[in-house]
């Protein structure tokens, strides 16, 4: 798997301090990292902190990067997941009953509000999933990781990942249908 890592040459160049490679890597990975952290934490400022911290880890490790068990992108997702889990744990310890931050309001008028409401319903439904199911959905649906890579990032088997995904999607389907019925009523 790792000998076909599409990022390995780029990481080597980053490790040599090539500014062009650095910019390419940031362009490719920052949106992915920020997307995962934002959906995990639902807090833009905290997600940006996580993204910056994840890149510090990249810069620290790029020079000595050795393709191992995981691809670079999978390793990066593991780093971001761990940083987010730490923050969620600290958040639970400090304010156990704090509600997640509301999504940024869409500036447009009514159509925007309806869209924002749908978005919030989906975000709430995913946030309410058990932790592992939520992570599995985020990695496969939103981060577009393959089943094998997502399983590697979560340190579980592909079969276990598929079970998490199936249960997560089933729960989401039911909750979103309920929310839709409530809106229609």
């Amino acid at each position: 798997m790792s000998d076909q890592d599409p990022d390995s040459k780029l990481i080597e160049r980053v490790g040599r301090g090539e500014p062009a490679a650095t910019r390419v890597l940031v362009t490719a990975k920052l949106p992915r990292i920020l997307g995962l952290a934002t959906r995990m934490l639902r807090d833009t400022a905290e997600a940006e902190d996580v993204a910056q911290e994840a890149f510090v880890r990249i810069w620290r490790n790029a020079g000595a990067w050795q393709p191992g068990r995981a691809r670079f992108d999978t390793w990066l997702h593991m780093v971001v997941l761990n940083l987010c889990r730490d923050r969620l744990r600290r958040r639970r310890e400090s304010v156990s009953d704090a509600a997640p931050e509301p999504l940024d309001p869409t500036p447009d008028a009514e159509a925007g509000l309806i869209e924002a409401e749908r978005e919030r319903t989906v975000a709430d439904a995913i946030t309410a999933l058990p932790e592992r199911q939520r992570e599995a959905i985020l990695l496969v649906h939103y981060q577009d990781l393959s089943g094998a890579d997502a399983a590697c990032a979560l340190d579980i088997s592909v079969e276990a990942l598929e079970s998490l995904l199936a249960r997560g999607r089933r729960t989401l389907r039911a909750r979103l249908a309920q929310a839709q019925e409530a809106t229609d009523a």
Partner: protein
Amino acid sequence: MREPLTLARFQELANVYGGVIARWPEEHRDAAMAMAVQPAARDVLADASALDAELDTWRVSPAALSLRARVIADAPVPIRKIAARAKLWWSGVGIAAALAGATAGTAAVAFVAPIDAPTDSGTSFGDVAGPGS
């Protein structure tokens, strides 16, 4: 040898990975594409895609330019750039030292120089006009 893909397994894969066959495990994709022409399989994909579409409504804002700039600012710099920066630093120190020396020298000269400066008529060889003039 791999078992042929059944509609039941097709349904399971859609329940797990959604309605986009490109996201399914590679070993099932060809068989799934072939099966997707069947009406029952098409219904399965449509059902899974409806959930995918709902999930896709949760979007996140793109990265701010300021964040991108902060991330790049933390990146390692090439060794020759570090050397150039060090050189610049040392030349800055040199310039500062030279300026400090010049300032100190000027101050010292101003402090110890005689106040009764030679008159305009004086030359470096003495007063050419002479005492009698």
